[in-house]
């Protein structure tokens, strides 16, 4: 069972209160982008065994979107953070480094 702390209402919400929103920190390529960029934006996703960043929504709760960093292999949660950011904050990256030295995910490490 996955339990994530919602950074907006402070509740430790278990999985059935939450809706998964897919990979975090996608950059949108829309009108004016190349076909390859648009293709990658639509279809190309990380599928790691280990550290992963995702979007979640506290749908049966305060209704807010937020971000979570967790391990897909162990379900260990490194932390959750605000939706109002385009990249993982330093304290989240530090928390992951403490548990998984040498981790990488997309361009982050």
């Amino acid at each position, binding site marked *: 069972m996955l339990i994530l702390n919602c950074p*907006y*209402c*402070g*509740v430790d*919400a*278990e999985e059935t*209160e939450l809706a998964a929103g897919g990979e975090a920190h996608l950059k949108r390529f829309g009108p004016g982008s190349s076909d390859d960029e648009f293709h990658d934006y639509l279809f190309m996703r990380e599928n790691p065994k280990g550290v992963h960043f995702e979007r979640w929504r506290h749908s*049966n*709760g*305060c209704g807010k979107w937020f971000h979570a960093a967790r391990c897909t292999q162990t379900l260990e949660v490194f932390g959750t953070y605000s939706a109002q950011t385009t990249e993982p904050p330093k304290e989240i990256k530090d928390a992951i480094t403490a548990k998984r030295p040498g981790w990488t995910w997309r361009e982050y490490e």
Partner: protein
Amino acid sequence: MSEPISALNHASYDGIAKVQECGLQGMITLRGDLSDKVLAKAVKDATGQKMPGQREAFVDGESGVCWMSPDELLVLVPYVEVEAKLAAMTNALSGTHALAVNVSDARAVFSISGSSAREVLGKLAPVELSSKAFQPGQIRRSRLAQVAGAFWMDDDQTLRVVCFRSAADYVFNLLKVAAQPGSEVGVY
């Protein structure tokens, strides 16, 4: 003008706790910047209550205010006063970036009372409801089996539950099953 009637018109059930549909309750959804003084005053004028902090609920009978999210409040007022209170609130908030809407007829309200009240709700929501974790003055939005619901405590043995009116029958049936005689679990 037809006479307004609540979803289940005061239906009740007696089991390990007493479950009752509370009847008509005035409710205003208020969205805006909760740190705004104009908004806080509008809430105070409507309910007599101060601005709630995160997951706080200040409710006294049919009046009160509940924290729903960082930019949303649930304002409770007596049903017959809701139009007047909403008009006053809308007036007070003109020029403020905020939105107030009467949602009274979109909701149903239940009370669960008795020494096993926590237990009845605890069977339906993935929420820690021990007296250590949940107390009068707090609100929790969650799910009741398969539908969304919010609840707070009027006192240590009374929970009040709000759900969508369209799910009122479903929620009442859930609560009845959870309150069946002999179904005490003894956790709380």
